């Protein structure tokens, strides 16, 4: 303890109280600013990517894969479905069970046509399932699927087909016939509402129709699924899925969201880790500045170090003192970097917005100068919403902040080690001889 307090005393003094030359001092301040600045992108990447991954996973969980999915590859009678649904509801963690029938088709409007992927959902799902309600934004109209020819379209789909509430669309579906060409079947739907999830992959070409209509259209293609929503979906979902399967007859296959979305999540995390690694390298490069500025400090403090050694200060204590100096520098940089990084991360949506506005203004100006006759400039958007969330949900992750701070401090200590060792090796006699 005494040892550390001595190192602390020396380290602190040699840095802060120091009549170090302007040059050395500005070098040290430069090192602090450099590391602080390099921490900003690291923190932004960690916080923002965490927010995006969480935001995207939650949307997929509530709207895409649901928490747990049950599929049967044998054709099921109505009673078997109901029996399974009732059995599942007995589990204390199960909140909601509903049938979903998946299908595909071609959707026509007066303005055009496009392929669609269809989910047939029960009419009351929007009221019953709070998770779905939370992430499914009804932009126009209302969620209504209680009559056979009602349909909900995603914003993307509605825009592509140029339809809005009350319009009629024509859906062409195919019915497979063994050994022959499939039979095509047209049906008409009334657009009741237009929704958006905020995430492109979930939205694009997505259409909801009543479950009974789906049963008629897709009965033979056999895509009946039971969607399950549970309490605390992020907790032990695999165990829960296994419990649910064991309570049902063996022809049910069960998949947890984790199972269904694993490839997507893995690719997110790979990308994120890669980014974090690159940003971390930037911090490491910035930390080299600690080494160089501290070498200057050590050279400048040679007489002091020599004097300390001559009065019987151990080389180890001197090394430790300079490691402390490095830690002080690192601490200042870390506090600065964390503060600015968090500020940037918390306001990332506004920052991106401001940046886009600025770029678009410049772009518009430039295009007016270059080509004054051309039409209005196209709007540029940094985060193409086809790939990202419209708005990044930000929640401060303290554990990750802690590790960021820890690694930046360790890097600083590591960078300080070289000059510290140099200080420890100074031979007092040679220094004290000089004027």
């Amino acid at each position, binding site marked *: 303890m005494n040892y550390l307090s*001595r190192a602390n*005393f020396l380290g602190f003094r*040699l840095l802060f109280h120091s009549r170090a030359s302007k040059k050395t001092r500005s070098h040290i301040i430069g090192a602090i600013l450099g590391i602080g600045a390099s921490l900003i992108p690291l923190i932004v990447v960690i916080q923002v990517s965490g927010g995006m991954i969480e935001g995207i996973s939650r949307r997929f969980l509530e709207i895409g894969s649901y928490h747990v999915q049950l599929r049967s590859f044998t054709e099921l009678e109505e009673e078997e479905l109901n029996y399974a649904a009732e059995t599942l509801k007995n589990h204390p963690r199960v909140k909601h069970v509903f049938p979903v029938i998946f299908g595909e088709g071609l959707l026509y409007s007066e303005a055009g046509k496009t392929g669609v992927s269809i989910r047939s959902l029960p009419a009351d799902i929007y009221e019953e399932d709070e998770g779905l309600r939370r992430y499914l934004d009804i932009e126009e109209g209302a969620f209504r699927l209680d009559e056979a020819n009602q349909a909900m379209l995603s914003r993307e789909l509605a825009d592509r087909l140029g339809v809005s509430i009350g319009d009629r669309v024509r859906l062409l579906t195919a019915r497979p016939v063994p050994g022959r060409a499939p039979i095509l079947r047209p049906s008409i739907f009334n657009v009741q509402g237009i929704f958006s999830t905020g995430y492109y992959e979930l939205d694009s070409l997505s259409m909801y129709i009543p479950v009974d209509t789906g049963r008629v259209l897709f009965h033979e293609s056999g895509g009946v699924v039971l969607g399950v929503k549970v309490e605390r979906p992020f907790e032990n979902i695999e165990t829960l899925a296994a419990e649910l399967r064991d309570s049902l007859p063996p022809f049910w296959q069960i998949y947890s969201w984790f199972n269904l979305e694993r490839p997507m999540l893995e690719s997110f995390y790979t990308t994120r880790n890669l980014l974090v690694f690159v940003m971390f390298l930037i911090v490491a490069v910035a930390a080299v500045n600690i080494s160089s500025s501290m070498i200057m400090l050590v050279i400048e403090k040679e*007489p*002091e170090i020599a004097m300390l050694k001559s009065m019987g200060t151990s*080389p180890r204590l001197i090394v430790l003192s300079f490691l402390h100096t490095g830690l002080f520098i690192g601490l200042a940089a870390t506090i600065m970097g964390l503060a600015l990084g968090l500020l940037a991360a918390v306001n990332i949506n506004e920052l991106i917005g401001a940046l886009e506005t600025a770029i678009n203004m410049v772009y518009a100006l430039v295009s007016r100068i270059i080509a004054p006759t051309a039409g209005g400039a196209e709007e540029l958007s940094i985060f193409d919403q086809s790939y990202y969330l419209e708005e990044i949900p930000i929640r401060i992750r303290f554990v990750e902040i802690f590790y960021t701070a820890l690694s930046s401090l360790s890097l600083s200590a590591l960078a300080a080690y070289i000059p510290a060792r140099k200080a420890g090796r100074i031979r007092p006699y040679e220094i004290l001889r000089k004027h």
Partner: protein
Amino acid sequence: MRTNNDNLVEIVNLGKIYKNGSEELHILRGVDLKIARGSSILISGESGSGKSTLLNLIGGLDRPSYGSVKVGDFMVDHGSEEEMTAYRNQQVGFIFQFHYLMKDFSALENTMLPAFMGGEAKEKALKRAAELLERVELGDREDFYPSQLSGGERQRVAVARALINEPDIVLADEPTGNLDEKHSEIVAELLFDLSKFFETTLVVVSHDLSLAKRADRHLRLNEGVLKG
């Protein structure tokens, strides 16, 4: 660590050769010296004769080329790095020719550093340092930094610092080197009186022959050997 022997320092056939490129500088050529415990000695000699070199060898800041230096029971020429550190801290007090004080530390802190670095609690070391500063008549300059002190004041702080660990031996290299006559007197008086008071052996290296009257012995370093 008293021994039966009356001599604190025993130097036998001490030699120091510096290699300057291909050139060899034979500075000390077999110095023999015994210094009685508690006595004071002045070593004079021309510039470049090797006075500082000799002092550094006694203080364990440098290693001899041949010969031996024994201080108390400690063979200075044979010590490990760790032993040398402890020796310099506990048994030696230095007053240097050029770099007197640490400029980032106040007079009080400068004085307490050897005690604090030696492992004494900070409060206690500061308290003793304050007492010593009183003794060198700098009680009112405790919080001054070296840049705010005069040359004589700095040297008095250096004297206090050299004595704080109550060392067996104080090695002073030109303690009055850059001072005017009046302040030389003040510093010299303090140095010799305090050494007496603490029963510390004192080795002073200086051109200043007026110090001779205060020292028990006066030796001259000439052509690498000591003469009476």
